[in-house]
């Protein structure tokens, strides 16, 4: 029998994330669904928009964060769906890795997924609403990444909780959306200030709230996650 040392938490998380991304890269089902949803939503919002009543700068932050929130849910739902299909989750949980590694690995793969959707949706929104993207690109990317961290933490936890329930498609948004509010609200507010041409310092108070909720959610979800896997 060969000597074996199971991977540590972060190494195991990296293996799980790589495996999840490989599956998504092969199937592309969730990414394409999220992307099509995002582009459709942009087009619908655009044609429903009365430019004489609301300026593009006022409307765009709302459009952007509605799209990110709901397209993200599509990927988050699939996160544990791939584990439940043939009960691969049992093999994962029977392996000698820490439960927290499963959370971190899944959350990282979901983060890449959400950032991928954002990377394509932000230029599309900028194009439709003629936003001055180059001027605020750096801070906007920072906000998108910070918000994505909060969203995937919550989403990964609730995806695990709801994956093996009969109404998982319904339960995930019902449970996760209220917890998304403390992340989406400061993200939308700081985006609005940036797009309005205000200095970054003016968005800082909202960014601090976003960072605080990110820390709370990442820690709380990582600690709570092992309990969601117990029967």
């Amino acid at each position: 029998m060969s000597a074996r040392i199971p991977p540590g938490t972060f190494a195991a998380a990296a293996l799980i994330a790589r495996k999840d991304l490989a599956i998504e890269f092969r199937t592309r089902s969730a990414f394409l669904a999220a992307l099509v949803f995002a582009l459709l939503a942009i087009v619908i919002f655009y044609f429903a928009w009365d430019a004489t009543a609301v300026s593009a700068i006022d409307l765009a932050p709302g459009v952007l964060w509605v799209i990110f929130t709901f397209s993200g849910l599509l990927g988050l739902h699939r996160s544990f769906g791939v584990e439940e299909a043939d009960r691969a989750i049992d093999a994962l949980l029977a392996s000698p890795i820490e439960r927290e590694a499963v959370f971190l690995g899944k959350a990282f793969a979901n983060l890449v997924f959400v950032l991928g959707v954002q990377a394509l949706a932000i230029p599309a929104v900028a194009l439709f609403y003629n936003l001055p993207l180059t001027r605020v690109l750096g801070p906007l990317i920072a906000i998108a990444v910070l918000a994505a961290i909060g969203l995937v933490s919550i989403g990964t936890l609730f995806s695990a909780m709801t994956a093996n329930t009969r109404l998982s498609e319904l339960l995930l948004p019902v449970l996760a959306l209220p917890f998304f509010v403390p992340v989406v609200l400061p993200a939308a507010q700081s985006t609005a200030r940036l797009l309005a041409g205000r200095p970054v310092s003016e968005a800082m108070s909202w960014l601090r709230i976003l960072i605080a909720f990110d820390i709370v959610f990442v820690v709380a979800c990582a600690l709570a996650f092992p309990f969601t896997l117990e029967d």
Partner: protein
Amino acid sequence: MPPTIEASGLTRSFGRRVAVRALTFAVHRGECLALFGPNGAGKTTLLRVLAGLLRPTSGNARIDGVALPGGAAARSVVGLISHQSMLYSALTALENVEFTARMYGVLEPRDAALRALQRMRLQDRADSPVRSLSRGMQQRVSIARAIVHDPRVVLLDEPYTGLDEGGASALSDALRSLKASGASLVLVTHHLGEGLALASHTAIMRDGRFLTHEPRGDVELETYRETYREAVTR
């Protein structure tokens, strides 16, 4: 030498329903306990407790000397095979087995995965996506996944489901070889013949209890079939 698997008063309930009732047994190195019983007897629940997937409600169990739920130390020596494949259909057979090898910290995981697939006579389908394989082949990949880390304890829940003659023979060979190398097996099956062929001990389970639990001895299949029928209809 202490037993590899040891249970004492092991009980697992789901709410008011008791799935496993105060079971006491031991499986030593190189032994196989074949567990028979009707559907809903508690066999799968017992395996899930031993695999560390469920916590015992009361009583205790030890795997390789580690009390359950024993964390990574207990889980690292266990291989779990179920009638569900526990595979990722979008990945290839090799990627699935290699992923598990890495999770158990197996040295040279790709080589170990290839060896495990070869053991299950699937080396020529290593690069095929699991979804393109037949049900029987998927089951053989699943078995390769479960034995890639040379487990000291192998828990098998209806492992022969979906296997053709070649697959069943490859599985029996692999299990005999694991047994010979000192692994302890717990085999849940409805097929008395397959169970008796590997068993060193047998147990018949119903309503979470062992109705019988005895050394296999040299009992004939037909005699044991009669014993089983009597036990479950009593």
